[in-house]
């Protein structure tokens, strides 16, 4: 292998490394955390929350979703884009709730952009690994595509077996391309952490669990609920 590599190639490789070192910018780390709420209360799995709109209680057993395509902007210019940006946020796994971003040191940041869900090209790219490994239970089987957002729980108001409700939102083909783009303004960032609040309660104001308790396929109801989910995120005000 080495013998076949000419001096010219070695030199080129060497120059490339020199170039790479000379121009690599110093970076800093930003910790992005997702903090879930149910109304004013901090949200935890398997706890009862009272929902005034239905005057009943809600318990959530599974809550996971994909955050993808993270970008940082200064006004309207993208100043940094995460490569291979797919993160499975699973509230059963605390580590998954924070994401380390390595960004150029002297960046002025005024906006954060990301998607909830997985884009259509990636959804149709075969067997992928890491957070996108179908082992995570976020890939549909009978029909290709990722589940962007999965929420399962119980509420006495659901007239279903064991009062269960389950929402699997996804779909990568029009008219049910369910991935959502989210842009949040950042007013100031000083301690290199960025907390995103995620409030679940409005979901249960927008749907009636009595009538809608199961979405398991790419469909119109799923599209509507995906749009509601997109409104649940905000930057934590210091």
């Amino acid at each position, binding site marked *: 292998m080495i013998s076949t590599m000419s001096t010219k190639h070695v030199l080129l490789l060497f120059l490339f490394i020199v170039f790479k070192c000379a121009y690599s910018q110093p970076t800093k780390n930003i910790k992005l955390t997702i903090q879930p709420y149910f109304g004013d209360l901090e949200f935890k799995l398997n706890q009862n929350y009272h929902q005034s709109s239905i005057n009943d209680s809600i318990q959530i057993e599974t809550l996971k979703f994909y955050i993808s395509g993270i970008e940082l902007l200064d006004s309207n210019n993208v100043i940094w884009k995460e490569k291979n940006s797919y993160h499975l946020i699973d509230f059963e796994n605390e580590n998954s709730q924070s994401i380390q971003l390595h960004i150029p040191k002297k960046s002025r940041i005024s906006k954060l952009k990301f998607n909830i869900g997985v884009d259509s090209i990636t959804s149709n790219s075969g067997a992928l690994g890491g957070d996108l490994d*179908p*082992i*995570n239970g976020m890939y549909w*089987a*009978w029909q*290709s595509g990722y589940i962007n957002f999965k929420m399962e729980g119980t509420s006495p108001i659901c007239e279903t077996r064991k009062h269960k409700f389950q929402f699997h939102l996804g779909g990568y083909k029009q008219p049910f391309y369910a991935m959502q783009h989210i842009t949040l303004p950042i007013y100031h960032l000083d301690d290199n952490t960025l907390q995103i609040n995620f409030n679940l309660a409005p979901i249960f104001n927008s749907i009636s669990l009595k009538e809608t308790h199961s979405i398991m396929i790419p469909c119109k109801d799923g599209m509507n609920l995906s749009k509601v989910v997109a409104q649940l995120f905000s930057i934590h005000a210091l």
Partner: protein
Amino acid sequence: MHFKKIHIIFYVLLIGIISFAFISKDTTPIIFTIPQNWPKPHYDFSKNTLTEEGFQLGRNLFYDPILSKDNTISCASCHLQATGFTHTDHDLSHGIEGKIGQRNSLALMNLAWQKNFMWDGGITHLEVQPLAPITNHLEMDESLDHVVKKLNASVYYKTLFKNAFHDSVVTGQKTLLALSQFLVQLNSFNSKYDKVIRKEKGVTFTEQEKRGFTLFKKNCANCHKEPLFTSETFENIGLKVDTTLTDLGRMAITKNSNDSLKFKIPTLRNIQFTFPYMHDGRFKKLSEVVNHYLGGIQNSKTLSEKLKGKPILLSHEEKIDLVVFLLTLTDTEFLFNKRFTYPITQKNNY
């Protein structure tokens, strides 16, 4: 300081290149052959480089009931090689605990040329296709997560994964990639028909086969396009709805009423052995299929345009000629290829 850093990076790279050269030595690459005059395959081999080790791992997985919940059903339970990798004699395929599925299993061959999988085309990539039978509660009723746990607990499989991927840690991705390596090589292109088309020495159609081929080209080839004998589209061929199943086919995926009762056009290669026919296995004999097109078509809103208008008229002799031609699509080299059989090295204790 910088210079030192460069030095270190350079040597690290050098070591990397050397070790890469060593790694690539211990897997045996497989070159995928595209049969003469065939279109370019749809499958992207650049993301799943074919190796002998990957193929053998996939073959082991294909024949192993470890993929099912109670370790009783393997892929091969419904996809038997001698019958074109489908389940003959069963209109609907079986699952664990004697459960009966809702459709007739499809034959597996020339999958690298397929864009859509399943009768309704719900699956659009070969690599994720195995998830459907693995997780369907009427089939293997298992989760990929649990399959991976079982494989990780098996010394036998850890070795096979190490051989194929240089890493003994089993993941869902690697499991699916290995299965695809096996599936993508189940290729049938050595039937009598192929040999005649390739003008191989001493192989010619009989007069009857020639007449059948002419009839085929006139009446069937529009959908069952050569050389793959499918056009990869979905059509409603006017089958009377089986009310015990009420299977709407493609519409279940697209939610579009224009797709109601449409099903994937299956390949006709090895059709002699892939009976029963249709998505619900309603026809046991090829003659019954031919008769359907001659007089059994039920009109409906979504009936294929190609079947509207004048019905196909064939005499009794012509029907036989057509079926005789279809038998030339049998590829015994494929059906009895030892590379695709049960891997005898497979251990029973994991």
